């Protein structure tokens, strides 16, 4: 659900990744702090407006929701059936109360909005931009000893190798199946053993790749983040400042609606 960048040219695509992280975080905060219908309208308004501004087809967002439908269904049902209060419907030991209904709907809304907000970030930001943004945001912490550049580089490399490792896992699956390996037979005790023919070579291959990659990077004079420059720098533009103002306004509004 998370790693699926969908290229485009919308307003949201053109924002700096750091701005987008701020937008998503503030949207999440306002969703979580909303305690009355006005708060919800504000939070949902921000999220849905952002979704509309991506100019991406709705099915792309729905895919993210669909992936987590189990979570949504379970939390809804738990709230619905286990919240005490004025009973509307009784089915034996399970009682659906008015409070349960409200709580269920509320949590469903909150989770859905959070998932949408997270999707906003991953759909409109390429993995490279995302890690560049994160590196930039974490760099002030370098003075406190946090290896921001190294962490961002690790993330970039990991993201880049996901498709490669997936493919290799598929090859291994086919090869071991060709020798009679069964990966789903037997109970959980057997599972761990039966996955060895998949995981051992996969990890061995990953280590081999890591070594080769490190040598290749060093051969091109990589020495870590010191004095390293970027070909495409991150810079805020007027769009980002406008978004920043909106973010602050929404945050202020949420806090106000919650506590005043």
């Amino acid at each position, binding site marked *: 659900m998370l790693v699926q960048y969908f290229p485009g040219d919308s307003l949201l695509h053109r924002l700096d990744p750091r701005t987008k992280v701020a937008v998503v975080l503030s949207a999440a905060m306002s969703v979580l702090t909303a305690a009355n219908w006005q708060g919800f309208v504000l939070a949902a308004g921000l999220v849905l407006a952002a979704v509309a501004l991506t100019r991406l087809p709705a099915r792309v967002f729905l895919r993210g929701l669909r992936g987590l439908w189990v979570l949504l269904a379970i939390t809804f049902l738990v709230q619905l059936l286990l919240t005490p209060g004025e009973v509307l419907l009784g089915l034996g030991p399970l009682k659906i109360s008015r409070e349960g209904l409200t709580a269920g709907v509320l949590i469903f809304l909150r989770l859905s909005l959070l998932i949408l907000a997270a999707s906003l970030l991953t759909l409109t930001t390429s993995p490279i931009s995302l890690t560049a943004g994160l590196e930039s945001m974490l760099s002030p912490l370098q003075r406190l000893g946090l290896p921001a550049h190294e962490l961002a580089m690790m993330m970039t490399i990991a993201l880049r190798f996901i498709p490669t490792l997936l493919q290799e896992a598929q*090859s*291994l699956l*086919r*090869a*071991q*199946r*060709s*020798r*009679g*390996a*069964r990966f789903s037979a037997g109970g959980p005790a057997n599972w761990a053993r039966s996955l*060895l*023919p998949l*995981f*051992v*070579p996969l990890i*061995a*291959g990953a280590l081999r790749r890591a070594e080769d990659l490190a040598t290749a990077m060093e051969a091109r004079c990589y020495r870590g983040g010191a004095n390293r420059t970027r070909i495409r720098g991150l810079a805020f533009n007027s769009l980002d400042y406008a978004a920043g103002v909106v973010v602050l306004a929404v945050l202020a509004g949420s806090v106000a609606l919650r506590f005043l």
Partner: protein
Amino acid sequence: MSPVIRVENLTHIYSPGTPFEVTSLDGISLEINKGEFFAIVGATGSGKSTLVQHFNGLLAPTCGKVWVCGADAADKKVRRDLWRRVGLVFQRPEQQFFEETIFEDVAFGPKNMGLNKGEVRERVSKALRLVDLDPEQAGKQSPFQLSGGNMRRAAIAGVLALGPEVLVLDEPTAGLDPRGRWQLLDHIESFRREQGITVVLVTHNMEEVGARAERVAVLNKGRLALQGTPREVFNRAEELLALGLDLPAPTALMRKLREAGLPVRADILTSTEAEEEIAKVLSQRGTALRI
């Protein structure tokens, strides 16, 4: 000779009905006879790997029919057990090792077959000896301690230990040095003769096809473009070149010599044949050739 593998109008489509739909095989029909050395060649993406995965039950046809050892592979139960009779060795098989010793890794197949300890040991020893590795010595080593060529041979032993009737090898010589390649093919040829196994070789290497294959099928974009004995197929050189494929070096050389005026036969498959033919023609002209 009865066909050990028969393919009729085989079509395979990956991810049907999605935006990622790809027709990998389109109406392929061919027969592979028992005990034959059959080669399958084609450019990357021509569908060679997809085709051979139908032979051991990994893939099922989208349309068309596949019969392996007399059984219809459309039946799930048939496919589930095909691996016992058709051994498929993928590219760079040495990357699949996961056990602590060579012996244990080669024993993986026989163990999956449900054989008892004694039978497993016998199969492993036999398989290792078939690829010229000492079961006592190499068997005890870790897979990563062997040289590249030996690792490859040990991995192939892992499939041989299944005792398959058909051995399918997908580019088994990729990444080996010329001597390693020749030795490996010699080994394959020798256990083909000894065990009566049918060998299907998927390769890019035309010299290997010329030197070893009895029949060859040429795939292009999922379709069967050419089929026949190597001599027949290499005779249609223009078509091969149009498909983006090569001739074996000796064959290409003979064609060039003919174009340059030397009346040599061009249906040559190996460098030995080329030497003999060139020597013969030159001696007919009265020119002695010292090799």
